[in-house]
């Protein structure tokens, strides 16, 4: 279980998180939705220790990590797989080397059956074994995301963080990724935390949706509850309307 308690984070004068309270239960897939720049990615980066909060606490399986040292964070890292927005594959390494990168560092005991592991994880994300020897530059956007996902699940983490998994993909590939997220939850029983502003994807993959607005969680419920919400912030966001309480900064063209 992951719990964020009153987490604050500012970058210079920009106060991104202003007291986030959020609980992620084991086995569920939670989606954090919210507009661009509301701090969704910043929130999940706190869970793995990529960012440290200015104030507040972060608990991962009963371990408080906001002040943890490197050795303790290493323990926490093993539990997380992270799918980055642009996949963040290492360009100089092949697909197989990318997939094994985390295994080598976090679960060296699995390296005995490295080849088998690569084939198996690539298959889980729907890629053929031939891809293993290719370099990331030879892959399409959707394939990169899938390799990124294979890399994230290779060392068998219990939590997977998906940072905008469908952004930049065509609608069909987006749905393929959604199916993968659902499939992984079923097959591996992992807990998923998805950050997205793609509502179709959010409804499809999540057991629960939380909305982040102005640095706080303003709503939290099942997809059904969110769809029927009377909260004006939620209503405006899920219908995608420019009119409403959320005023996006308009660029100074007019």
């Amino acid at each position: 279980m992951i719990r964020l308690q009153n987490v604050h984070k500012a970058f210079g004068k920009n106060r991104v998180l202003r007291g986030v309270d959020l609980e992620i239960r084991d086995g569920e897939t939670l989606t954090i939705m919210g507009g661009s720049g509301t701090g969704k990615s910043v929130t999940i980066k706190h869970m793995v220790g990529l960012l440290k909060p200015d104030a507040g606490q972060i608990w991962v399986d009963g371990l408080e990590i906001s002040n943890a040292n490197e050795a303790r964070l290493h323990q926490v890292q093993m539990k997380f797989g992270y799918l980055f927005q642009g996949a963040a594959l290492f360009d100089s390494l092949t697909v197989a080397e990318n997939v094994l990168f985390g295994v080598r560092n976090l679960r060296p005991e699995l390296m005995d059956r490295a080849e088998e592991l690569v084939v198996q994880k690539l298959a889980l994300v729907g890629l053929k074994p031939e891809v293993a020897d290719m370099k990331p530059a030879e892959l399409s956007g959707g394939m990169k995301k899938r390799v990124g996902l294979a890399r994230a699940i290779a060392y068998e983490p219990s939590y997977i963080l998906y940072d905008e998994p469908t952004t930049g993909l065509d609608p069909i590939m987006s749905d393929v990724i959604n199916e993968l997220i659902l499939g992984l939850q079923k097959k591996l029983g992992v807990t998923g935390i998805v950050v997205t502003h793609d509502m179709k994807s959010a409804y499809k993959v999540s057991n629960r949706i939380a909305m982040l607005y102005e640095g706080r969680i303003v709503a939290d419920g099942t997809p059904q509850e969110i769809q029927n919400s009377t909260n004006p912030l939620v209503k405006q966001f899920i219908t995608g309307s420019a009119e409403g309480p959320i005023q996006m900064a308009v660029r100074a063209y007019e």
Partner: protein
Amino acid sequence: MNIFQALGRHILDLAESLGSVTILLQKTLKWIFRGKPDFRNIFAQMLEIGVRSFPVTSLTALFTGMVLALQTGYSFRKVFNEPLYVGTVVGLSLVKELGPVLTALVVSGRVGAAIAAELGTMNVTEQLDALYTLGTNPVRYLAVPRFMASFLMVPLLTLYADIIGIIGGSFVAIGRLGIPSTVYWNEIQAMQLNECFHGLIKSFIFAVIIVTTACYKGFNCSGGAEGVGRATTSAVVVSMVLILVSDYFMSALLVSIGIG
């Protein structure tokens, strides 16, 4: 914003950057002494930083030695009616100053820029975050091998540059100025080991400046392709300025403690 605010902000920014660079250097050193060396990665970097810089360093050194001999020869001919001390001037200038400084400048332009661009790109494409989530410390994986490779290769390149520069000087001194080759080489051999150390010690420091600045700029860049471009430019500019400024102070210090 008045002038004091602007000045204050610049000073604060500078102090902050200096602090962050020091922290990066400290982390790098900590990993060098604590972690297992990643020889494969270090050798790859030595090849990139050292071996691939060899042609451009050689060319720079060769022509610097040649022009030094030419200028010294003709200037001294005007004053003394004959080209005296060409070997001494070429040798000392190269070994104490031009060898280390020019090598460092060339390497900072070539290698510093490449390191800043590579790490910067990794940064803006979240590859540094990915390294971290996959259980690898980016400083350990990226900065340490580059640091060790530079620390070994820059002084070695400097030594090469000294030798090639002196050979270049001999072509002009002997071939064009008509100095007997025994005179030129005797003057070169009259140099003391101390004087070589003077230049070599400086080149170790230059290596640290180049690689630390480049890694810092790469690790701390933001804002996509434009940010990477800015980081690269500033890595080169900052390290060149630091090399030239620190050169004076290090030379003064080394001379005062009797090295060179």
